[in-house]
Every structure is written in structure tokens, then in C-alpha cells.
């Protein structure tokens, strides 16, 4: 597999930043950055990361199963992550998540039929003092109300270059 030029450059730097012989350390960051470009963690991607980091595909596979941001199935172009952990729960996070489910017509870790949106009820994303919080791809949105979420989702650009995921 070959990635985009900027990603190839990033991976070259990444492999060089760990001590000699410790290139396995690049497995997790390489997976997450590659996922952004490929769309999901595919079998080919696992084999490619294993080859580049000098480990077996099984060693990469077991890592994929552990980290919640790594997805084996494609997620939406816009991955909507609603936090319902305590700080968000106290100020309407659960209601906001229910609203998002109704609005998008999908549930936890599901994707809309057109592939535009996926939804995830996430654990604390570190926005507690500005709750309730939503992260769309890698963009944080604070003090989100149902109306604000509608606006946000309705106004996301169609261009393929806006989303950080599936770029």
C-alpha cells in the first residue's frame, strides 16, 4: 500500500523517532493516521502496518481490537461523537445524544445509508467545563444544544476535503 505523499513523509519521520529497533512503537499512531486516509482498518492496512513496523499482522490485529478510535468498518464522512459522561450528563448530554440518534436515524456506532454520518456515544473527551460536548471528526464543539447540533450537522460542507476523517 502507498499513502499520500504527506502521510508517507509523516510515517518516515514517525519510524525514525523511536529508538533503533523499536519501530513497533509506531503501530498505534500509524494505524490511526492511516485510518483517516483509508477510511477504516482493513486487512491490507493491518498487513502494511505490520510490514512497516517489523511485527506480525497478528500483533497489529490485537492492537486494533483494543483502541476505541480504530474502526474495522468504514465510519461516516462525518463521525459525530456525543459525550454523555458525568459532566455532560448533568447538563443534558444524554438528551443531546438521543436527539442526535433521532436526527440521524442511526444508533451507537452506526452509519447512515448514504455514508455521510456515523454516530458514537463516547466517553469523556476532555471538554467537561464546556459541556455538553460533541466532537465531529477531530473538531470540538462546546455547550451544544439540540438546535446548535442541528445547525452544525445541516451546515457541514459536502466537499471531500473538509472532514478530518476519510480525508
Amino acid at each position, binding site marked *: 500500500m502507498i499513502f499520500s505523499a504527506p502521510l508517507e513523509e509523516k510515517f518516515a519521520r514517525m519510524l525514525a523517532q523511536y529508538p533503533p529497533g523499536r519501530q*513497533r512503537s509506531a503501530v498505534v499512531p500509524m494505524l*490511526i493516521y492511516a485510518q483517516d486516509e483509508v477510511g477504516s482498518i482493513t486487512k491490507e492496512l493491518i498487513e502494511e502496518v505490520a510490514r512497516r513496523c517489523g511485527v506480525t499482522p497478528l500483533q497489529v490485529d490485537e*492492537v486494533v481490537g483494543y483502541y476505541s478510535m480504530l474502526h474495522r468498518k468504514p465510519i461516516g464522512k462525518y463521525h459525530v461523537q456525543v459525550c454523555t459522561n*458525568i459532566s455532560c450528563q448533568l*447538563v443534558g448530554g444524554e438528551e443531546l445524544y438521543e436527539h442526535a440518534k433521532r436526527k440521524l436515524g442511526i444508533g451507537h456506532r452506526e452509519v447512515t445509508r448514504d455514508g455521510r454520518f456515523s454516530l458514537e456515544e463516547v*466517553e*469523556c473527551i476532555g471538554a*467537561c467545563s464546556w459541556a455538553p460536548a460533541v466532537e465531529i471528526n477531530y473538531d470540538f464543539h462546546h455547550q451544544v444544544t439540540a438546535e446548535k447540533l442541528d445547525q452544525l450537522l445541516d451546515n457541514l460542507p459536502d466537499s471531500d476535503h473538509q472532514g478530518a476523517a476519510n480525508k
Partner: protein
Amino acid sequence: MTMLYNEPSPLETRVVSKRFGLPNSASLDTFLATGGFEAFHKAREMKPEQIIEEVKVSALRGRGGAGFPTGLKWSFVPRNSPKPKYIIVNADESEPGTCKDRLLMEYDPHQLIEGILIAALAVDSHAGYIYIRGEYRYLIELMDRAIAEAYAKGYLGKNIAGTGWDFDLYTHSGAGAYECGEETALLDSIEGKRGIPRMKPPFPAVAGAWGCPTLLNNVETFSAVPAIIRDGGKAFADLGTPKNGGTRLVCISGHVNKPGVYELPLGYPMMKAINEVAGGIPHGRKLKAVVPGGSSCPLLRAEECDIAMDYDTLAKAGSMLGSGGMVVMDETTDMVRVALRIMRFYAHESCGWCIPCREGTAWLRKILSRMVEGNGRREDVALLGELSKNMLGRTFCALGDAAAMPTMSIVEKFAEDFEKYLVPEAVLV
């Protein structure tokens, strides 16, 4: 002015957050114009043991949650080991209620870099890694830019600031795992594995990343170091209470009028933080409970909140100062639903390595769900307490305790909240 997430309070003591809100506060120019790297140059003139002594005098304690004395931790790193020594920054901030390291990286990344460099001088390290949670991608990019700027101007890399001393610094992305905030799980993660906690000893200071001596601290801990070296450990210690030096970023969330991150001296009165710094509870409601420092801490009932916020005082009260994530709950809060939400989190995040944690969190979640769904049995309340008690101290890392402790405190202190879930008629209302 840089946009801040919340208005600062005049009641704050701004030491590590002093640059928050300055124009281009994340730039090296702003940093240098406001005393940046003065502490580093001072540290260059000091012997390593003097640096560590100054940190000990400051009574700085780990800001990630455990509160271990920082200077002591630094002294455990075998400086003369023939192996390379590594600095690792824990920026995996994910303790529910905590959102401060974000600001330290966003508004003052060079202060963090300076703190890392001083630590590196103290333990003779030449390479460091900032482990940033994957959800904070924008901060990884921001730190990468700050690091590139520091390299370009000679504050990282070879012959730093003409001193003949080398240090390389890198970021490392996580990919979603609360457990990786535990230092030994973080080390496994940075080695490219599942984040499973390690048996201790050996402690990371002796055998950490790639089997080498490793100094691992939280973002806020490193960020406090420049002020300690610049103004002296004693000046920092004097801001707080005995054995609880300095200030810390308190993240106030939940039912308050002005939620936000505020820098307060250790020992600050909790009720003053709620009522004055954070503007009190909305709608004239009464306080019911407080999570003092992240969801792992036993909760306090309102009448227990007339307390000084330092590590030792909260420990004496049976709770913890933790990570600085203070969650305020008013009288309308349903503590059973809070307990369930907390347990859903720990059950999701348990890495599954230790059976008491893996099974315990899953069973506690199931029992609490059953209650909230209206099928609670009277004996369930005691069962929650019993199961939690059986998890305590029986796991490799603190996640099992972190799940058990808040649950036990809710069962003990808010028994009345469970009543309505035990009487089917009341649930139907």
C-alpha cells in the same frame, strides 16, 4: 487576545496559566518575551541534584491524579545508568471531569517544553515523548508546530541554546483508551501494544519505556517546573499548604453558573470555589454532591464540602484531590443514574487484564442498569457495595479501585436515592 474557553476569575492565582489569553500565547516569541527559558538557563547552571532538590522543596505533587511527590519521583531515576533515559509526558487526559491539560498545550506549549527540558537535565535524558490522546488531534498538531518552532530556534535538537547539550522531543498519538493514562499501560501503548498495566516493581523510573529508566509525569506537572526553578521551590510551596505546594488547574463542571478551568492554590476552600469562583449553583438550588477530582474519587455529600482542596485534607475526608476535575451536582441530581453512568464508563474502559475489574465493572453496570430500568431488588444495594469492596486492591492498576470507590461512596452516602428504584409503583409515576 486569544479566545479563552471561559472567563478567568479575579480570584485565581495564575502561575502555570499566566500566559493564557495573551496574544499568540502559543508562539515562541510570546514565550520568550514573558520570561520563557529563563528557568532553563538557570537550571543549566545548577547541578542535577540541586534541580531535584528544588522540586522537592516546592512540594509539587503529580497533577495526573495520584499526587505522588514529583521531586521524589525524579530522584528514583538512576542518573548514572548506562542505558538511555527517557522523558514521557502523560497527555492522555481522560479522567471524566478533567479538561486542563488541553489548555496547557493549547495556550502555553513552550512552557511544557521548558519543563521537559529541565526534567531532562535533572535525570540526564536526551529524548522525550508526549503521549497525547487520539481525540486531541488538534493538540498533537499544535504541539508538533511548537516543537518545530523550538527546533528551528535552537531550543530543541543539538547544542540547545549553545549549551552543548542535546535533546529531542516528539509527540505520540493514542487511539482511544482511558487505561493508557495509567503510566505502565501508557508504556505498553507507546511500545505499540495493547495498553495493559505492568506488574510493579520495577517502577518506570528504573525500567520504563523499552526497558530503560523513564521519567513519566502529567502535562501540568511538567508545566509547573519552570516557575519552580525560576522563582525557587519555596516560593511555589508557599502558595499552597504544607506538603501540597503551588497551585493547580481546577476544572469545574456540572451545576454551576460559570463552569471553567481556574488556577487555584492548593488548600483553596471548596465552597468558595463553587460559590465564588464558579458563580454558584444555578436556579437557587442547593448543593447535593461533589466529585472532587475526577470520577475515580469517592463523592462528597454537600455537608462534607466545607473543606480545603489539598491532597492530604481530601484523603483524610476519605476522598481524593485526584486530577482536578471537580463535578458539582445540585439537589435535583439522581445519584443512581450518576452511578450507572460512572460504571458504564469503567466497564467500557476496563482493559480486561485483571478479572476482579473486568467482571466487577460488568456486573456493577448490569445491576445498576437493572435498577434504573425499574427492576431493582432490595438486596441489590448491598450487592453493589459488596461487589465493589471485592474489587478494591485486587488489580494490577488503579482502574478497579477507581470504579469501586465512587460506587461505594454513592451506595453509602446516597442510600435514599436508591429507594425509588426498588419500589416498582414509584417507577411507573
